[in-house]
C-alpha cells in the first residue's frame, strides 16, 4: 500500500510538471509577442522593447521556464496586471471563497444524492425509481446559467425572497447566509442528478447479488437488508465519484460565480484570461490541476479503505 502511494505521488509530480510545461508553452507560443500582449495593442515599439528587456523575455524559453518554476517553488506567484496586486494577495482569498461555496454544496450534495440513489436503486424499475431517475436526468440537463436565470426570476424578481447577487457584502441589506442559498441550489440541481444515478446504478447491481437474495429469503426485514447488507457494498464506487466531484466543483463553479457575481476562484481565472493576465492564469491553472490530481489520490485512498478486497491484496 505504501508503494502504491509512492507511485501515485510520483504520478502527481509528473502530471504537475507536464501541465506546467503545457501551460507555459501555450502562453508562450500563442500568436503575438508576450510584452505586446501584456501592454495591449496601443503600446509603442519602444514600450514593448523596454518591457521585453525588463521581463527578460529575450532569453531562451527553457531558461525562463526554469526561472518561473523556481519562483513558484519559493512561493512567488508573480504580479497580477488586472487586479494590480501580487497574485498571492488575491488568489488565496478567492480560492477560500470558492472552497466555502463548494464545501456547503458538497455537504448537502452527498447525503441528498445517497438517500435518493438508494431509494431509487433498491427496487429497480419501480415507480419511485422511475420518478427519481427521470427527475434527475432533467435537472442535470439544465445548464447552471439557465437554472440560475429561472431561480433568480422566481425568487428574486417575482417573490423578492432572496438577493440576486452574492457579493459577500452586507451593503445591500441581505445577510451573508441568504446570499448562499441560490448559488448552492443551482450547483445542487446540476450535480445531484448525476450522483444519484451513480449511486442508483451501484445499488441496482448490488441488489442482484446472491447474498442479498439470501438475506431477503431468510426473512430479514427489508430495511435491514438495505442498510446492513446492500448499502455499504453499494457505496464503494460512488464514494470515489463523490471525491472526484470536489475537483469539478472547485473549477466549474465559475458559471455560478458569474451568474451571482460571487467573488470566487473560477471567476478570477476567467477575468484574468479575458484580460490576458498571465501570472494569474498560470498560477490559477496550476492550483486547479493540483487540486484535481490530489483529489484523485484521495479518491483512491477512499476506495481502498472501503473495499477490503483491494486493501488486503
Amino acid at each position, binding site marked *: 500500500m505504501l508503494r502504491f502511494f509512492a507511485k501515485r505521488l510520483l*504520478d502527481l509530480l509528473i*502530471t504537475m510538471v*507536464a*501541465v506546467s510545461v*503545457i*501551460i507555459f508553452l*501555450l*502562453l508562450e507560443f*500563442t*500568436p503575438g509577442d508576450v510584452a505586446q500582449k501584456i501592454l495591449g495593442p496601443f503600446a509603442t515599439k519602444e514600450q514593448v522593447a523596454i518591457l521585453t528587456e525588463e521581463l527578460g523575455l529575450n532569453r531562451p524559453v527553457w531558461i525562463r521556464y526554469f526561472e518561473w518554476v523556481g519562483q513558484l517553488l519559493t512561493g512567488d506567484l508573480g504580479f497580477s496586471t488586472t487586479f494590480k496586486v501580487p497574485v498571492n494577495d488575491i488568489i488565496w482569498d478567492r480560492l477560500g471563497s470558492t472552497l466555502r461555496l463548494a464545501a456547503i454544496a458538497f455537504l448537502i450534495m452527498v447525503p441528498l444524492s445517497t438517500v435518493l440513489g438508494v431509494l431509487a436503486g433498491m427496487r429497480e424499475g419501480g415507480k419511485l425509481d422511475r420518478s427519481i*431517475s*427521470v427527475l434527475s*436526468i*432533467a435537472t*442535470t*440537463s*439544465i*445548464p*447552471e*446559467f*439557465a437554472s440560475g*436565470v*429561472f431561480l*433568480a*426570476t422566481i425568487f428574486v*424578481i417575482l417573490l423578492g425572497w432572496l438577493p*440576486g447577487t452574492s457579493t459577500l457584502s452586507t451593503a445591500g441589506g441581505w445577510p451573508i447566509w441568504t446570499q448562499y442559498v441560490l448559488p448552492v441550489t443551482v450547483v445542487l440541481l446540476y450535480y445531484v442528478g448525476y450522483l444519484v444515478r451513480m449511486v442508483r446504478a451501484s445499488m441496482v447491481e448490488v441488489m442482484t447479488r446472491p447474498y442479498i437474495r439470501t438475506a431477503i429469503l431468510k426473512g430479514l426485514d427489508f430495511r435491514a437488508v438495505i442498510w446492513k447488507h446492500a448499502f455499504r457494498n453499494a457505496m464503494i464506487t460512488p464514494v470515489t465519484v463523490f471525491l472526484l466531484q470536489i*475537483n*469539478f466543483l*472547485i*473549477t*466549474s463553479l*465559475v*458559471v455560478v460565480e*458569474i*451568474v451571482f457575481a460571487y467573488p470566487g476562484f*473560477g471567476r478570477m*481565472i*476567467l477575468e484574468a*484570461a*479575458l484580460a*490576458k493576465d498571465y501570472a494569474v*492564469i498560470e498560477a*490559477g*491553472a496550476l492550483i*486547479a*490541476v493540483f487540486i*484535481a*490530481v490530489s483529489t*484523485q489520490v484521495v479518491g483512491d485512498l477512499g476506495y481502498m479503505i472501503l473495499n477490503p478486497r483491494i486493501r488486503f491484496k
Partner: protein
Amino acid sequence: MTATTSKASGSVLGAWFHRISLLRESPVGMVGAFIVVFWVVVAIFAPVLSPYDPNETHYDMLAFLHPSSQHWFGLDSSGRDMLSRIIWGSRTVLIVAPLAVGVAYLVGCSLGLLAGYYIGWVDVLMSRITNIILSIPPIVLFIIIITLFGPSVINLIIAFTLIAAPQIARLVRGITLELRERDFVAAAKMRGEGSLYIMVVEILPNARGPLIVDLCLRTGYTIIQIGVLGFLGLGLPPPTPDWGGMVNQGYAQLFSYPHMSIFPCIAISSLVIGFNFLADGMREISLRD
C-alpha cells in the same frame, strides 16, 4: 451489447430501424426523441419559420422591447427579434455540437482502438497523455484556449476534441480490450485480415451499444458547454445567433427584461433534456438485447 449476433449483417439501415422501433417501448426515450426531432425540424426550416431576419434591428421598437403581438418573444437589447434569434440559434447549436462531437469521436475512437488493440507501449504512452489532459479541469482548458486563440467554430471544435477525445479513447480502449479476445477477431486474424480491417470492421461495430449511448449524452453535454462558453462571453463571435451568447447579453437586464434571458434558457434546457432522455431510452434498449 450483441457481440455474437451482429457482424454488420448486410443492412445497417435495417438495424437502425429496428433500434428506433424498439424505442417506442421507452416513454422517456420517446419524449426525448420527440424534443430532438422538434429542434432539428426548427433548425432545418429556420428560414421559413423565423418571422424576421435574426440580425435585423427594429429601430421603431427600441422603446418597447417586451413580448408583443408582433414580436412574440420580445426583442433583445439591440432591438432584434428574439423568436427569430432562438430559431436561428437552434441551427447554430445543432451544427456546432454534432460537428464537435463527430471530430472528437473520430480522434477518440482511433486512439482508443489503437491503444486497446496493440496494448504494449502504445497503450502506456496514450494512457499517460490521456491522464495528463484529463487532469486539467475542462473549463480552465476552455478558458485558456478560447481566450488565447480567439472564439471561432474551428477553435471551439479543437478545444472540445482536446477535452472529449481522451475520454472517448478511454471508453473505446476498454471495450476493445475485451473484444480483441473474442472468437470473431481470432477468425478474422486466421482469414488473414489486416489489423486496420479488424479494428474498423470487426471491433468497432460491436462496440456500438455503449458508444451510441455515450454519443447522445455527449451531444447533450456539448450543447451545455457551448451554452456555457456563450454565457461566459467566450462563445461564437457576434452576430451569430447563439443561445448562450443571448443570455450573456440579456442577463444584466434580467430585472427589467426577463424575457431576454428566459427564452434562450428554456430553448437550451429543452434540447439538452431531449438528448439525455433519448440517451436514457437507448440505454434501456441496449440493456435489453
